[in-house]
């Protein structure tokens, strides 16, 4: 795992969707349709979205574990 290209449009769009889902729960019907269309348009879209979603989940897990166990690099 390493540095990502900040200018990769596909990666940025994937993240925009992940954040939008976080902020608008649930997504509107039209937004869901738009996301589904984007995911189906290209397998690379889906891969990018899936990876962004995994990082987003892992971030929550890391923060949650830090608060549960009060240990690790996130507790200082």
């Amino acid at each position, binding site marked *: *795992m*390493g*540095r*990502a290209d*900040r200018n990769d449009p*596909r*990666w*940025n769009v994937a*993240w925009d969707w992940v*954040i939008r*889902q*976080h902020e608008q*729960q*649930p*997504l509107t019907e039209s937004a*869901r349709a738009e*996301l*589904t269309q984007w*995911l189906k348009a290209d397998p*690379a879209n*889906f*891969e*990018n*979205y*899936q*990876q*962004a*979603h*995994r*990082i*987003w*989940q*892992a*971030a*929550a*897990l*890391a*923060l*949650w*574990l*830090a*608060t*549960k*166990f009060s240990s*690790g*690099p*996130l507790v*200082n």
Partner: protein
Amino acid sequence: VSNDRQRQDLQAAFIEHRHRLRQAAQRIVGNRHLAEDVLQSAYLRITDASVHLAIQQPVSYCFQVVRHLAIDQSRRRALEAQFFAAEFEGHAVPAPQTSPERTVIDGQLLALIEETLARLPARTRQAFILYRIDGMTQRAIAEQLGVSPTLVNFMIKDAIEALKQCRDPTES
């Protein structure tokens, strides 16, 4: 007993009883692979602790550490499972192929993200916790932290930008 001598005694006890130690770990964590992880952590812990503690019974101490770490790992895994169950309840991802099983988080990714988040300024991390874990709006976070919504927006963006750098280039 000198520290060096004590360390040698502990290492010797650990190596001599490693099979039984692994069995003890396996009974708690459920499989050999996880038991090996516990054993590795225990070895590091035992070597480190020998500098600070006067240990009378090295073998008992080794078993005690292995059991403690195995229980800790089991608890952690149970909590992780609980977390994922809650996280996915009602938050279905609108893609037919996506399921919790496909959103497996490996230890390497988790460690990278922990390091990434740990490098953020404390206030940025606090704002991000309120946003990500507590689900607060940026306006509410601003009120709680006593800063402007614009600053909160920048802090959240910084945290997200840092996470975006955790991408695995071999995956996509």
